[in-house]
């Protein structure tokens, strides 16, 4: 039976193609000069360069962390190229007509048409290809509502005050090794600002694509929801199938001011490497949001890709009554390794957090949940609920949970539940006896296991997640 399940999970990686795009790519290597050159091609102001250089010096003093339940050959950061952009992007195309059709085709193949007429009506997309943003759609429509949605490289020029004020304010430069590296070499990513009292009229989304060989992708996203505003943001990512490991080290910062709400969803489908663990993306990501009074940040992630995932989307619940949520599905198979979870830092009074984590391990993979719930002394009446479920498929995989609780306020309540289960022979036999083929049966059982998380995804993304794990009939009973 395990054999059949393995076959079922060994889906082809459909996003594994390479686009024939001529690129300008830096020679591999990392030093101050490379950082100056990145800053220069982006035409950045002096203050931005200074910020990068400072980060670089901080980073040079740091060491790669090794506390995660992961084992992988260290990446030689001198063999990575830190900038790659399609040549056609050099003249900064002003409209879609001027964008290299091969780039548009790439996104179309990935199911993200960038021509507005063909797009899903309710979603604006920022398409990032290697180190640059190719297109950001529906910008005018968003501007009418006062919403800013643009590449962060552009925001550095256009909205320097906002960038200066908020960049590094949630994830400080020295936060960790990969975040510091990102501060020094980040290339592009999305910037979002939602004005006071505004409900963003569309879903915003960024689609990250790595194409070039031997490059790292270091994107940076900053989302600011001003007082009483609301935004839902989606993120997707894929990369070609290559035998070498590639590094992706992103930083995402969310700022939810008083009474604001940010919903951030990710479907992570970086190339996972082959059955034997050859190739695949190393995904080392720092994501964190800060909630001011009555604000809410909700992270939902579906992690199916990457050879190695190191990722802990977190919430700093600074304001009273603020709310943090983390809903996660992490599926590992083959030789994939994931060490993922969240941190909920309760600072304000009556802050609340919910953590629902679903880990699915198959093949020879390793899947760990690592979560920290901290109740600071001032967190009167704070509450956390954590539920951590692991599903094992076969008997060669590993599932681990590392929950850390630090409670310094006696009135705070922390609840933790954890389960481990298996896709059983009985379940498989029942499905097959009803005529369902084994592949479908596995995906149905796995989907059922993930249901609580999937229902948190925006509709359009639920479809994508569903394609990844093959959902059907979700929510069709009225």
């Amino acid at each position, binding site marked *: 039976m395990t054999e059949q399940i393995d076959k079922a999970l060994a889906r082809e990686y459909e996003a594994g193609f390479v686009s024939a795009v001529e690129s300008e790519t830096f020679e591999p290597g990392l030093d101050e000069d490379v950082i100056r050159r990145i800053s220069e091609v982006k035409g950045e102001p002096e203050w931005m360069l200074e910020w990068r250089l400072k980060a670089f010096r901080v980073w040079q003093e740091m060491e790669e962390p090794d506390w995660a339940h992961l084992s992988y050959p260290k990446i030689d950061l001198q063999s990575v190229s830190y900038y790659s952009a399609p040549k056609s992007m050099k003249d900064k195309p002003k409209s879609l007509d001027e964008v290299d059709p091969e780039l548009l085709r790439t996104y179309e193949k990935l199911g993200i048409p960038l021509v507005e007429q063909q797009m899903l009506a309710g979603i604006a997309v920022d398409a990032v290809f290697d180190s640059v943003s190719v297109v950001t759609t529906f910008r005018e429509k968003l501007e009418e509502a006062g919403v800013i949605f643009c590449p962060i490289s552009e925001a550095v020029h256009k909205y320097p005050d906002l960038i200066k004020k908020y960049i590094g304010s949630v994830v400080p430069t020295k936060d960790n090794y990969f975040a510091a590296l990102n501060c020094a070499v980040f290339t592009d990513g999305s910037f979002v600002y939602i004005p006071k009292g505004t409900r963003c009229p569309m879903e915003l989304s960024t689609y990250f694509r790595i194409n070039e060989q031997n490059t790292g992708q270091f994107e940076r996203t900053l989302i600011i929801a001003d007082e009483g505003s609301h935004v839902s943001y989606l993120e997707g990512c894929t990369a070609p199938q290559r035998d070498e490991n590639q590094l992706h080290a992103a930083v995402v910062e969310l700022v939810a001011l008083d009474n604001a709400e940010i919903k951030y969803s990710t479907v992570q489908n970086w190339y996972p490497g082959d059955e034997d663990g050859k190739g695949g993306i190393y995904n080392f990501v720092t994501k964190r949001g800060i909630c001011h009074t009555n604000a809410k940040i909700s992270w939902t992630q579906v992690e199916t890709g990457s050879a190695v995932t190191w990722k802990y989307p977190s919430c700093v619940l600074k304001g009273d009554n603020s709310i943090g949520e983390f809903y996660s599905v992490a599926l590992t198979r083959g030789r994939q390794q994931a060490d993922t979870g969240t941190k909920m830092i309760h600072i304000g009074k009556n802050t609340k957090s919910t953590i629902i984590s679903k880990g699915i391990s198959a093949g020879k993979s390793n899947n760990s949940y690592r979560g920290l719930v901290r109740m600071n002394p001032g967190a009167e009446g704070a509450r956390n609920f954590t539920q951590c479920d692991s599903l094992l498929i076969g008997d060669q995989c590993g599932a681990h949970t590392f929950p850390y609780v630090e409670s310094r306020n006696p009135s705070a309540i922390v609840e933790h539940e954890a389960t481990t289960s298996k896709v059983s022979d009985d*379940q498989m036999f029942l499905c097959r006896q009803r005529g369902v083929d084994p592949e479908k049966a596995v995906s*149905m059982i796995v989907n059922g296991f993930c249901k609580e998380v999937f229902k948190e995804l925006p509709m359009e993304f639920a479809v994508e997640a569903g394609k990844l794990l093959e959902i059907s009939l979700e929510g069709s009973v009225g």
Partner: protein
Amino acid sequence: MSNENVLLSIKDLHASVEEKNILKGLNLDIKPGEVHAIMGPNGAGKSTTGYVLSGRDGYEVDSGSATLDGQDLFDMDVEERARAGLFLAFQYPVEIPGVSNLEFLKVSVDSQREARGEEALTSAEFLKLAKEACKQVNLPVSFLKRGVNEGFSGGEKKRNEIMQMILLKPKLCILDETDSGLDIDAMQVVANGVNSQRDSERSFIVVTHYQRLLDYIKPDFVHVLADGKIVKSGDASLAKELEAQGYAWLQTEPTEDEIED
């Protein structure tokens, strides 16, 4: 015996589980529309028969044959046998948390329709059928939304099995002690569900320990399975006899001739 007009034909079937011989020369022919009851002591191989016919992993066929509608069952995968019209109602239905009953039913029905080259039903069409089936087995419609067998009582699980049978419209239904653990009302519901599906085409194997189910589902034949083979066959009156006398008196009798009848 000619194969003409036989739905299920089991010939001299020997099967084992974990190297242990369980079925030791089982013979049984079932024609379309017939209801056969199988009774017999615990451990006789009744459940094993259902599992071997449906192809469960770990149940090895050592020799003999079984055909459904002339097709060799042992040549097919589990799901192919199901699509060919074989349905097994489980003695102990398993839970699938988070997968709604409706989703499970629709995926099952769609899979079987697809295999027959039929179009998938729309969600609305299917929902209507599913609601009707719920009513037939006396389960509230809200059970469609709940996870498959998740937190169901024993009786609800058994009724859920019958609901699946109603929606899948199999040719051969094997009910493995569907009446065990049910009170008289629940048993009647199950019996009514089965009776509503009886027609001149559909056949049933009803495994039971109790005569009382057979008061509601009137069998055409009753067989006694003991130590891996059928030791006695008769009509409905045999069940009454068994109820009165138990199985012990049968086990010493020569039975080969009767089976070949």
